[in-house]
């Protein structure tokens, strides 16, 4: 159903207060209002959400999969960026 009249939208749902909106899928709709209603009908039928964002898919700038070496591999060797080299006192609790 990818037609010029019903472009693609990305749907983000926030499940609880204090949490971030998370991407949960996409849908086709004529405009933002209808996209929001479709998102409600498709993605919150089981009480999943308190808030919905819809974003035109073509408004998202994505990284190029063919550049993933350049983009992401340099981080793989920097294990010291994970905070696993510190002794955390018990009193601190969860960090």
């Amino acid at each position, binding site marked *: *159903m990818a037609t010029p009249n*019903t472009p693609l939208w990305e749907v983000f749902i926030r499940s609880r207060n204090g949490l971030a909106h998370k991407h949960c899928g996409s*849908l*086709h*709709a*004529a405009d933002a*209002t*209808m996209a929001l*209603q*479709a998102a*409600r*009908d*498709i993605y919150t*039928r089981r009480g999943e959400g308190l808030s919905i964002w819809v974003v035109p898919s073509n408004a998202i700038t994505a990284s190029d999969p063919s550049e993933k070496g350049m983009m992401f591999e340099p981080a793989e060797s920097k294990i010291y960026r994970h905070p696993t080299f510190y002794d955390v006192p018990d009193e601190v609790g969860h960090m």
Partner: protein
Amino acid sequence: MATPSIKVSETPLVLYVLRRADDALILGHRLSEWCGHAPALEEDMALANMGLDLLGQARELYTYAAKAEGKGNDEDKFAYLRDVRQYRNLLLMEQPNGDFARTMVRQFFYSAFADRYWRAMMTSSDSTLAAIAAKSEKESAYHLRHSSEWIVRLGDGTEESHRRAQAAIDDLWAFTGEMFAVDDAERDLIDTGVAIDPASLKAQWLKTVAGVVAEATLALPKNDWMQQGGRVGRHSEHLGHLLSELQSLQRTFPGAIW
């Protein structure tokens, strides 16, 4: 059919509740007929969701009607074991789905009424009806929003969608008057505060409907002749076909469960 219909003792309260339950069941069933056939997956889900809202309302209302009647009937018997002439829904509800525009216009006409009706019924002196109203009002408000948005897009869309939406309005308009009618059986319930007078909602309903229709570049018919009969069991030919499908399993295999 294999299984005989039940008898119903239609006291004013039982009749009143059954009428609203039948409205919800029949319109909900009509919407369920779209399942797997809607113009797009998104709308397939939306129509089914609205149908399930209405089915939920029907179940609560039937259960209450059974309690008010106190004759051993229940929600299933009311739904599956009454014949056409025992059904009390508005004629608007049983009108065939037709095309998508027709389904949406039917939904829009009813939801614009139901939204206000249930909101008003939240003040019913009958606590069960007031509780059902509080739940139904939120559902109806969304149905109104969804159908209104579609009316605007169909009317102000393409030449074809405009033509189809206008044809649906012209065809279904005569079934809207029944929503506001009151008979003697309901008058006492209105006087005692159990029910609200639907006539009091008509001006607001018309304002809502006229506003959306104007935004959609559509027009309401000038003709104000209204068809009635559903509330006393005089139905169009369509309801019999609908019930034969809805009831076929229980009529053939009484009490079947899974």
